[in-house]
């Protein structure tokens, strides 16, 4: 349990989080690993978890017929993948494929939501941190959409 707490505390998204919150989060956490070629999740499945990547690489992919799978973003050490656990109907909107052996900490979404309901201070902390994450992703997506290299 102690090692799980330290893993959570060392992850950038929870940097500086108070110990009492770490104690609450650890009850929702588990260590997971995915071999290369395995999916963390697939489009349409219930979004039960979010993943704090510790090592490895994960590709977020969307099927774009007739082209096939397109990778829209990749994640590595220190990244967080998945926030569909936060919003109804709690379904994944893309596939997440492990492209090399990936180790991560999985946080159970339902467990997190319940703890946030019970402790709104924790809820505020978590929502703030995930909102920053989403804002960064939105900025990156915007830059990607601009297709800036087509003009240079």
């Amino acid at each position, binding site marked *: 349990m102690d090692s799980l707490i330290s893993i959570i505390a060392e992850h950038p998204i929870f940097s500086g989080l108070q110990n009492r919150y770490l104690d609450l989060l650890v009850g929702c956490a588990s260590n997971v690993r995915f071999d290369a070629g395995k999916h963390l999740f697939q489009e349409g499945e219930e979004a039960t978890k979010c993943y704090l990547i510790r090592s490895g690489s994960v590709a977020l992919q969307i099927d774009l017929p007739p082209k096939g799978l397109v990778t829209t*973003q990749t994640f590595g050490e220190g990244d967080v993948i998945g926030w569909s656990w936060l919003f109804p109907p709690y379904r994944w909107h893309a596939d997440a494929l492990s492209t090399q052996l990936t180790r991560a900490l999985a946080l159970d979404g339902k467990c997190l939501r319940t703890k946030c309901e019970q402790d709104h201070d924790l809820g505020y902390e978590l929502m703030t941190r995930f909102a920053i994450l989403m804002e960064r992703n939105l900025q990156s997506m915007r830059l990607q959409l601009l297709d*800036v290299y087509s003009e240079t």
Partner: protein
Amino acid sequence: MQMSPAMRESAMVPDLYRIQHVRRETKDTFTVELRAVQRNGGVHFAPGQFNMLYVYGVGEVPISISGDPGKDQCLIHTTRAVGTVTRAMQKLHKGATLGVRGPYGTHWPVKEAEGSDIVIIAGGIGLAPLRSALYRILEHREKYGKVQLLYGARTPADILYKNELEHWRARLDMDVVVTVDRAPGTWRGNVGVVPAFIPKAAFDPSSTVSMICGPEMMMRYSVQELQKCGVADENIYVSLERNMKCGIGLCGHCQIQNLFVCKDGPVVSYQNVKDLMTKREV
């Protein structure tokens, strides 16, 4: 320095160079290797400077020098075929001649950055002018701290200098991150924009010099990330691109307020241009 009329005139006359080699880099970029026809001796330039390349009968364009400043027997330019002149240049073969004026402009602060960590951030064809700086830095590797190269391209097929990137990545004394904006599902490299990788790069912000070249939007986002990491504006250098014609600060085509990009740039400290870079009118 004020130029006399004779100096101005001579600065507008190109030297004759012959193409030694043409290499296709991607579907729309190519590299030409040039050697002086009339002039003896080497070519001297500083990383980041550019030449005006003249395709006879078509026109003249400013192109950054992308070769190794330590190897001064030939000029190397990588460019993208996007306009009339560069499309005509792409059709030239070994043995054809080009006019060359230069080198012009300011250079990357490779000497001044000795002792610091180096973060090189390139986007698209922006890797070409930074390659010269990287050659110089790697040649004197012991004089620098950590060296990071972050390079972004549109797709895997648009990645420049693939062999060299692999060679650099294999080195134990520098970190190389290559990312693309979009990729098929079979791609096993990074997908995402270059600025997103800056917070993950290992460098000491209090002792870092960053050199950035790419689309202006990408440079702005990169600067923001560097600032968040704590890199001072005066230690961030960007390469500006404007409509350069004369190359010597006379015609005013590339003028932004009191800055002549051909003469006072293309490499400038972000500290000196931050107001210009966020002003829509310029």
